[in-house]
C-alpha cells in the first residue's frame, strides 16, 4: 500500500469521524468543535502564506476580526442576513490583506514579520479598542448575541453549524491543495524560492504575492465570520478573541505542527481550541498555562527538529511503509539499513 492510497482511504474516514463525533457531544462541546474548525481555517490561511509563499504573518487574527466584526455589526446591529454579512466580511478581509500586502511587496522575511506585528497591534489598540464600535452596536460589550443563521428556512444549531463550517473548511482545504499541486502552486513556490529568477521567467511576482496575501486574508476573514457565530459573541477590548496574542500563538502552533501542510493546519486548529480546555481540567493548571507550554514546546522542538511534528510524523509513516515494502526483499532492506 503506497502512502497515496493510504491517504485516499484515511482522509474520507477521518473526515467522517470528525463530522459524526460531535453529534454525541453536549451543546457546549459542539460549540467548541465549531470554534476549532474556524481556528483550523485560520491556520489554513497561514499555511497558504507561510508554507507556500514563504511569508510570515502575525496579523491573521486581525483579518479574522474584520470578518467577525462585519458579521457582528451587520447581523446583530442592523439585522442583515448572515450569508451576505459573511461574504462582505470575507471581502473586507481580502481587501485588508491586499492593503497589507502592498508595503510587504518590497519586504521579505523578518521585516515583513515586523510589519505584520505593527498591523496587529494597530488593530488591537485602534480598531478593537473598547468604545470604537459603540455607534454600530449600541453598547460597550459590542455584540453579545450573534444568532445562528438559517439555511433553506431551517435554523441552524451548534451541530449543523459545525457541519457547515466543516464543509467550508473542506472546500478551502481542497482549494489550497489544488493551489499547491497545480500550476499556481509551482508559480508560488518559484516566487518563494527566488523572486529574481521568477521575474526573469516573466512571472508577475508582485501580482502573485498580492494575490496570495489577498486569498490568505480572505480565508482568515471567513474564519472570523464562522468564529463569530460559533462563539456566539463578538467583542473588542480586553475580551477580544482577535488580539495580537492569539496571532502569536497561532504562528507558534503552526510552526510546531509544520508550516507547510494542510494536515498540520487541521491539527493546529483543534489544538488551539481544545488544549486550553484540557489544561483547565488538570488540577493545579489552567488555560493560562497554555502559552507557556506552547512556547516551551516551540523552543524545544525548533532546537531539536525544525520541520514540525506533523511533517515529521508523515515522514515517519512514509518511512515505515517503505520499510514494510522492503521486508519482502530482505537483501535490499539490509542494504538500506546499512546505508542508513
Amino acid at each position, binding site marked *: 500500500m503506497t502512502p497515496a492510497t493510504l491517504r485516499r482511504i484515511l482522509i474520507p474516514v477521518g473526515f467522517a469521524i470528525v463530522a459524526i463525533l460531535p453529534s454525541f457531544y453536549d451543546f457546549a462541546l459542539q460549540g467548541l468543535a465549531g470554534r476549532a474548525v474556524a481556528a483550523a481555517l485560520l491556520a489554513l490561511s497561514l499555511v497558504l502564506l507561510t508554507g507556500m509563499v514563504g511569508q510570515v504573518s502575525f496579523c491573521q487574527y486581525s483579518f479574522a476580526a474584520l470578518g467577525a466584526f462585519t458579521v457582528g455589526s451587520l447581523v446583530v446591529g442592523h439585522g442583515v442576513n448572515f450569508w451576505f454579512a459573511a461574504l462582505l466580511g470575507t471581502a473586507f478581509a481580502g481587501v485588508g490583506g491586499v492593503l497589507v500586502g502592498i508595503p510587504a511587496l518590497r519586504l521579505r522575511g523578518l521585516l515583513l514579520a*515586523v*510589519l505584520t506585528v505593527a498591523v496587529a497591534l*494597530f488593530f488591537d489598540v485602534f480598531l478593537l479598542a473598547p468604545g470604537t464600535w459603540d455607534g454600530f452596536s449600541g453598547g460597550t460589550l459590542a455584540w453579545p448575541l450573534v444568532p445562528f443563521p438559517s439555511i433553506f428556512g431551517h435554523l441552524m444549531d451548534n451541530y449543523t453549524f459545525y457541519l457547515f463550517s466543516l464543509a467550508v473548511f473542506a472546500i478551502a482545504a481542497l482549494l489550497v491543495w489544488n493551489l499547491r499541486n497545480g500550476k499556481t502552486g509551482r508559480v508560488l513556490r518559484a516566487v518563494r524560492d527566488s523572486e529574481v529568477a521568477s521575474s526573469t521567467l516573466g512571472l508577475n511576482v508582485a501580482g502573485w504575492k498580492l494575490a496570495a496575501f489577498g486569498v490568505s486574508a480572505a480565508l482568515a476573514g471567513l474564519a472570523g465570520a464562522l468564529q463569530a457565530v460559533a462563539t456566539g459573541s463578538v467583542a473588542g477590548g480586553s475580551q477580544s478573541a482577535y488580539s495580537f496574542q492569539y496571532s502569536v500563538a497561532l504562528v507558534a502552533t503552526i510552526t510546531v505542527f509544520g508550516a507547510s501542510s494542510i494536515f498540520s493546519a487541521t491539527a493546529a486548529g483543534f489544538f488551539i481550541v481544545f488544549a486550553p480546555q484540557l489544561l483547565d481540567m488538570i488540577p493545579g493548571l489552567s488555560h493560562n498555562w497554555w502559552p*507557556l507550554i506552547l*512556547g516551551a514546546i*516551540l523552543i524545544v522542538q525548533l*532546537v531539536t527538529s525544525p520541520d514540525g511534528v506533523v511533517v515529521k510524523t508523515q515522514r515517519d509513516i512514509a518511512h515505515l511503509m517503505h520499510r514494510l515494502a522492503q521486508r519482502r526483499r530482505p537483501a535490499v532492506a539490509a542494504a538500506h539499513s546499512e546505508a542508513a
Partner: protein
Amino acid sequence: MHASLAAALVADLTTFKNLLPTGLADGSVYALAALGLVLIYRVSGVLNFAQGAVATVSAFVAYQFANVWFQNTGYGPWIGLLAAIVAGGFMGFVIEVFTIRPLTGRPPIVKVAVTIGWLLVLQQIAGLVWDFTGYHPPIKLVDRNSTFPLPGTDVHFGLNQLLVILTALALAGGTAYLLQRTTLGASMRAVSDDPRGARLWGIDVDRVTALSWIIGSAMAAVAGVLITPFIIFTPFSLTLVVVNSFAAALLGRLQSLVFTVIGALFLGVAEQVPATFGYGGASWRQAVTFSVVLLALWVLFRPGNRAVRAV
C-alpha cells in the same frame, strides 16, 4: 474667527510644551530597549522578538525586590533595579546559549521563531507569578512629584522623566564607547561583519555573541524598570513596548546607534502630537507608531538601498 483660531493654536502649543517631557521620557525608554535590540541584531543577526518579554519579567523581578521584599527600606528600588539587570542579563544568556547557539547555520527565521517561543514563555511566567491583571505599584527610583523647569523656559520636567532621559543617553554613550573603543567592541563588530573571518582571527565568537545578548537583554531590563511609572504596569502592557522599540531600531536601519536614539526620541515626541490636537489616548499613539514603522520600512528598507544589510 481668526483670533479664536490663533488662540486654539497657542493652546495647542502650550499642551505640546507640557507633553514634551512625557514624549522625551517615553522616547528614552524606547531608545534603551531599541539599543539592546540593535546590539543583539548586529552581532548575532537575530531580531529578538522576546525583547519586550525580557523587559517585562525583569521589571517584575525589580517589583518583587523593591515593593515586596525590601519595601520599607530606603534603597529598595535600587536593589530592584540591580536585580532586574542581573535577571535580564541572565535571561539573555540562557536564550542565546541554550536555544540560539544550537541553531547556528540555520535560516534567521528559525531563530526568530525561537524568540517568539520565549516571548510566550516569559510573558506567561510574569502573568502566572505576578498576576495578569492586578494593580502593581510602579518602581519609584526617585520622587515622582518633584518637578523643576528647564532653565529659561516654562517646560517642567519631572525628576523621574529626567532620570530616564539621562540614563538612556548615558547608556547610549556607553554602548557607543563599548563598540568603538574597547577590544570587546571591536570583536563584536568583527563578528557582526563576518563571523567566520572573526573566528579565523582567534576571536571567541560564542563568547562575544553571548555577551551581546547579555548586555542587550540587561538594557531591556533597565528599560522595563524605568517605564513602570509611566504605564499601567501589567504583564501585557510592557509587551507593547517591543513594537515601539522595533520602530526606533528600524529608524536606525537596525545598524546605527545614533539614529536609533534619535529615532526613539522622535517617536516618543511624535506620539504626543495627536494629544495636542485633542486626540489623546493609547489608540492614537499606536497609530503614530504604526505610521512610523510603515514609513521606515517603506523609505529606509527599499530594495537596492545598499546602506541596509539584507535581513
